[in-house]
């Protein structure tokens, strides 16, 4: 059997084994779950501004983000957030709750390798690239505005 034929057969085998994601329903789930998480955020914001009338929109947004980051972290610890993620896909990844989940999840997972080299080091396996790239882009934008 020559190599090309073998590769072709192997690729067919891989294609057959890859889990098929049903395209259309997952789009709907992602849309609904993502939209709902944002609505919960808006609800917390409105509640905060109702309780503290002097609070600015910026402060309310910052508090709201901290609250939903806490809730997502708690749900990840309890193992509930991953269950939502199974059917919601990007609906649970793209909101900031997914960022919180991506930090808490490896922290809980790697606790058994020790506090410093497990928990603390592995905490940033997903969030690290996000922060690195985000900071890099923000510095580039800052430089552009500096010379504008």
């Amino acid at each position, binding site marked *: 059997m020559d190599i090309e034929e073998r590769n072709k057969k192997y690729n067919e085998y891989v294609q057959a084994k890859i889990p098929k994601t049903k395209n259309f329903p997952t789009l709907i789930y992602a849309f609904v779950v*993502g939209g709902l998480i*944002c609505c919960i955020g808006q609800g917390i914001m409105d509640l905060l501004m109702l309780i503290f009338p002097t609070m600015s929109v910026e402060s309310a947004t910052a508090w709201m983000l901290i609250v939903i980051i806490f809730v997502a972290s708690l749900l990840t610890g309890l193992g509930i957030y991953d269950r939502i993620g199974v059917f919601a896909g990007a609906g649970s990844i793209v909101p900031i709750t997914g960022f919180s989940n991506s930090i808490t999840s490896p922290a809980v997972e790697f606790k058994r390798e020790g506090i410093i080299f497990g928990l603390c080091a592995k905490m940033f396996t997903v969030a690290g690239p996000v922060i690195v790239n985000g900071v890099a882009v923000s510095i580039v934008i800052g430089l552009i505005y500096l010379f504008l």
Partner: protein
Amino acid sequence: MLWMYAKVFLVGGFICLLGQLLIIKTNITSSRILVLFVCIGAVLEGLGLYQPIIDWAGAGATVPIVGFGRSLAKGAIEAVREQGLLGVFTGGLTATSGGIAAAVVFAFIMALIFNSKTKKF
């Protein structure tokens, strides 16, 4: 009031739908989606295009990770106006420090409290 929540739902859901579309079409990993969306948010804010979306849809635009990128860029831009070159370095992380610190601290506490669940799925 109800219209506001409809806008939040539509915009927030649409951004997540774009992410899901990327997953289906390109098999991109979730980590790369986060990186990509943060960069998009920062660039949009740099061009001044993201603030109108926030004014229109509120939490629908600030809750998705795109809003995190937007905060980084906004912090950098504002700090540059006030402090010049120093602001280039301090601005981005200052604006997002609340979110990052909260995520890190809560993750640490939760990891101390909970043990990892054996995945059943």
